[in-house]
Structure formats: structure tokens, C-alpha cells
């Protein structure tokens, strides 16, 4: 586990460095400051030297938490961003809570009674929910709730009422995703032997779901939910713009319009840092939720087998590996019940990535 975490930490630092560098370059694509500083006819190596110096200074500043000065507001960029951060966190947390509170029960209920009335009702809801862009949902909510019914304010912040519409808007897509994911995770688990055993020994159906199925379905759900934090952060940019919510995303849009690139740069770096921290926290949570991960440590890199179900034939792994939980069959895809014949195992990183292509859209045949 220690080695696993060290690796993840290293990767997190790498990501931050990579993103900062990308942003550093991108922001300077619009106009090369060095070209303005030097007289015409300066040799190329001197220019390269100056660029290098600028980059080193930028990295040094980054390490000290200094992200430059906003040209427009004449203030250090990082405090400007951090000032807006609590609002974004408030909004994102509210949306995430809402998505989890509604999406999880919805998905579990649909999954446990597959083909039931509720399940059949949930499928179109999820499909439509995933197809509705958040900025449209937001506008419709304003149109109906604020303009027609005069129920809730359409913009502003500070009172609980102002939080309602933005968080519903932001939660919308995540809600559908979490519902879909928990539905297929529950479906996948429900077919396993231990569930039949639990039923056979007379455990109440409710307890089977809560104590047995959900515990095992938690990992895929957690994975998707954590990935969704990135979507929420991105979605916050749009939601904040619609509802005039004074968060980080709106700051970014304002900064872009004002051509205040230092602030744009700071927002991107802070946003990435938050996302990277969330991913790290998820990795720790894996260990808490499933002791097998903590025991097995990091899934060995490229893995003996990729985590997509194998085309045409499924490899058999030696039992020892299966016990360790990172064997060749260490993958199953809850997104594709019916095709996954592999036993459960715990190599979350790989499984997580392997689902990505199937994350967003439920296949009608698998849901109906």
C-alpha cells in the first residue's frame, strides 16, 4: 500500500507539473513576451535562454505558491482565485451530495428489481438526463422556476435559496451517471454466488442489498463518482456563468474576456490540483473500502492482461493470482453484464480506465 501511494503521489506531482507547463506554453501562445522584451535581431540562442529563464522562474514561483500578478486587477493571481474557491466548493459539494443522494438509491432500486416498473421508468430518465446539456437544464430551470413561478432567485449567492437551482443544474449529469453506474454494479454483483448464499441462509433481501451487494458494488460506484468530480469542476464553469455564481469558473470566464491570462493560468492550475487531490483521496478510500486492495498493493503496471474483457477468448489465471486479486482476469466490466465472465478482482486503476468508454451511455438492451 505504501509503495502504491508513493507511486500515486509521484504521478499527482507529475500531472501538476505537466499541466502547469502546458498552461505556461498555451498562455504565451497568444503573444510571446520575450519577443517584446528583446531588440530586433537578437540571436535565437539568447531568446531561447530568456524563455528558459522565464519558465524556470514560473516553476520556482509555482513551488512557492506564487502564480504571478493579474494585469487587470493588479493583484496576485492566486489569492484572487482562492477567494472564489469556497463558492465553487460549496456549489460542487452541494451538487455532488445531491447527485449521490438521488442517483445512488435510484440506481440501486432499479438494479435490485431488474425489469420492474421502477427500472423501466429509470432507463429513459437516465438516458435523457445524460443527453441534456447542463447549460440548457439551467436555462430551463430559470425559465420555469424563476421566471414563470417566481419561486427561487435566478442568480446571486449567500442565501440557501440561491444554491438550489445551480446545484440541481450541476448535479444533473452526475446524477444520471451515478444512477447508471450503481444500477449496473448492483446487477453485476447480484448474480454472484455469495448473494445466492446469503439469500439461501435466510438473510432478509434488504440486508442482502445493503450489507452484501452494496459493499462490493461500492468500488465501481466510487470510481465513477470520483471521476465525476472533474466533470463537476468543468461543469461549474458553465453553471456559475448561468447563475452569476461568484465562483472560480466565473472568474475564469471573466478573466478570459478581460484577457487576464495570469488569472486563467492560476484557475487551471488550482482546478487541476483539486482534481488530482480528489483522485488521490479516492485511492486511499479504495483501501478502506476493500482491504484486498491494501493487501495486494498497486496493480502491477501494464498488468498481465488489460482490463477489457478479452475478445473471443478469456484467459484463465492461476488460482494463486486470483486470490491475490490482481490476476490476469482482474477485470470485469459492469457496463457489460452478460459478456463479463471473469470473477471479481481488485485492480481498481485498470478497471476504472477500462470502463471509461462504457461509462456514459447505458446500452438499452442491458438496461431494459
Amino acid at each position, binding site marked *: 500500500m505504501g509503495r502504491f501511494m508513493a507511486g500515486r503521489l509521484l504521478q499527482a506531482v507529475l500531472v501538476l507539473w505537466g499541466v502547469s507547463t502546458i498552461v505556461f506554453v498555451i498562455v504565451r501562445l497568444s503573444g510571446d513576451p520575450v519577443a517584446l522584451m528583446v531588440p530586433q535581431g537578437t540571436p535565437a540562442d539568447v531568446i531561447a535562454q530568456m524563455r528558459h529563464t522565464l519558465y524556470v522562474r514560473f516553476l520556482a514561483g509555482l513551488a512557492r505558491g506564487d502564480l504571478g500578478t493579474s494585469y487587470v486587477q493588479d493583484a496576485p493571481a492566486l489569492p484572487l482565485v482562492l477567494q472564489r474557491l469556497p463558492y465553487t466548493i460549496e456549489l460542487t459539494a452541494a451538487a455532488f451530495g445531491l447527485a449521490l443522494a438521488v442517483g445512488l438509491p435510484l440506481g440501486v432500486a432499479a438494479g435490485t428489481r431488474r425489469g420492474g416498473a421502477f427500472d423501466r421508468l429509470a432507463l429513459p430518465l437516465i438516458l435523457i438526463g445524460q443527453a441534456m446539456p447542463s447549460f440548457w437544464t439551467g436555462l430551463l430551470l430559470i*425559465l420555469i422556476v424563476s421566471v414563470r413561478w417566481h419561486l427561487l432567485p435566478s442568480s446571486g449567492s449567500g442565501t440557501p435559496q440561491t444554491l438550489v437551482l445551480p446545484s440541481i443544474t450541476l448535479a444533473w449529469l452526475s446524477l444520471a451517471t451515478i444512477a447508471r453506474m450503481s444500477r449496473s454494479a448492483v446487477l453485476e454483483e447480484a448474480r454472484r454466488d455469495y448473494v445466492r448464499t446469503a439469500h439461501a441462509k435466510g438473510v432478509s433481501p434488504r440486508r442482502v442489498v445493503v450489507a452484501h451487494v452494496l459493499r462490493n458494488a461500492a468500488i465501481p460506484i466510487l470510481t465513477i463518482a470520483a471521476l465525476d468530480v472533474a466533470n463537476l469542476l468543468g461543469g461549474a464553469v458553465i453553471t456559475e456563468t448561468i447563475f452569476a455564481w461568484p465562483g472560480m469558473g466565473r472568474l475564469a470566464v471573466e478573466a478570459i474576456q478581460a484577457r487576464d491570462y495570469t488569472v486563467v493560468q492560476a484557475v487551471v492550475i488550482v482546478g487541476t490540483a483539486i482534481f488530482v487531490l480528489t483522485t488521490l483521496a479516492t485511492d486511499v478510500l479504495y483501501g478502506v473500502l476493500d482491504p484486498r486492495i491494501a493487501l495486494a498493493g498497486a496493480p502491477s503496471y501494464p498488468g498481465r492482461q488489460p482490463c477489457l474483457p478479452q475478445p473471443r477468448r478469456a484467459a484463465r489465471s492461476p488460482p494463486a493470482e486470483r486470490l491475490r486479486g490482481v490476476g490476469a482476469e482482474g477485470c470485469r466490466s459492469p457496463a457489460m453484464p452478460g459478456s463479463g465472465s471473469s470473477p471479481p478482482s481488485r485492480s481498481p486503476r485498470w478497471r476504472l480506465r477500462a470502463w471509461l468508454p462504457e461509462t456514459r451511455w447505458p446500452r438499452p438492451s442491458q438496461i431494459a
Partner: protein
Amino acid sequence: MSPGTRGPHGAVFWLGTDGLGRDALSRLIYGARASLAVASLAVACSGALGLFVGLTAGYYRGWVGAVLMRFVDIVLSIPFLLIALAVVAALGPGLEHTVLVLGLTRWPRYARVAFAQTLAGRSQEFVEAARALGGTDVRVMLRHVLPEVLPSIVVVGTLEIGLMIVYEAALSFLGLGVQPPTPSWGNMLADGRAYLATGWWLATFPGLAIMVTVLGANLLGDAVRDRLDPRVR
């Protein structure tokens, strides 16, 4: 004018007109261009890039594969909308830049799938046979491994189209995508925002168009997956 109003020359504005008196239906139809063009170009770019990286990583494995896939991990953990904002902010808004951003940030998904499928494909007997017969790496990759990988990539691609449409609309909505005189669903929605209190139809129909298109793209993706994916068959 509200939807269904008859204009001065007897023509009916089925979806009404916008703040400048332009027919909303015509703009909606024309706006489909931007969405579909950006979505398909972006999918093509990112698909080709991802396929190349994944195929190379999966075929050579070893350190080449490890380095490439690590890189994929890193790109995958970048919050992409924020990067898109930065790029568009720096390069200026426009259709090409939108395609560029989407193409350059969305490829890791394809790379992962291609990597996994290549690993599986290259261990099969006919690939071994082709290598034993003296086929060059490039030939084996293109003639024997690629056909194994392609269906999955097509599946991912069709599933991505819906997302691309949403992202294009989102960028245009923020004023960073297609620029105003040219209609796109995103900037029509942004226009409609200003008339929420007086003209409900301006913000409703472009969004509806996006929703229906994305829903269609997603269902198409599902159908393509069902047909092409050897794992499901």
C-alpha cells in the same frame, strides 16, 4: 415574434424570431453544421491519435508501452474543460481551435481501448504466424492487429460524438466557440439567455436540438457497440 407567427410576407416563423428578427428555425438548421462538423472532426482527430498511441504501445509493450501509457494516464487526469478554456483564451475563439482542443484532449480514451485490444490481438496465433513468416512490424500492425482493434475504436468514437456535441455547444455558449454572426446551438442558447423573460422559445429549442442530437448519437453508439463489439456478440 413568438413561434408560429405569420410574418409580413405571409411566411410563418415556426420557431419565432430572435432579438434581431432573424428566423429561429433557419438558424437552428444552419447551426447543426457547426455542431456536427466540430463533433465529427474532433472525433476523427482524437480517434486517429489515440489509435496510433495505443497500437504502438500495445504492439511494442516493454518500456515503450509503459512510457506511452503513463503519458496517457497523465493526460487523462487533466481536467479538460479548464485546459480548453485556456487554449481558446490564448488562441482566440473559433471553430478550428475548438476542434484542436477537443482533438488533443480527448484521445487518451481511444489509446486505452486500442492498447488493451492490441495486447489481446497480438497474442493470437495468426499474428504470431504473420510475424513468423517475416512480416514487418508495420505490416503486421496494420494488416493483422488493426482489424482486431478497429471495431472497439469505432464504438468509442460513436459514443464520444454525443459528448463532443455537448462540449462544442458549451464552448460556444461561453462565447469561446463559434462566433456570433454564424449561428450554432451553443451561441443561440447564449443569445436566448438574454431574452429568458420575454421569449422562452429562444432558449428552449436550441437546447432541445442538442438534447435530441446527443440522445440520437448515444443511441447510435450503443447500437454500433452491439453490432461491432466482438465481446458482446
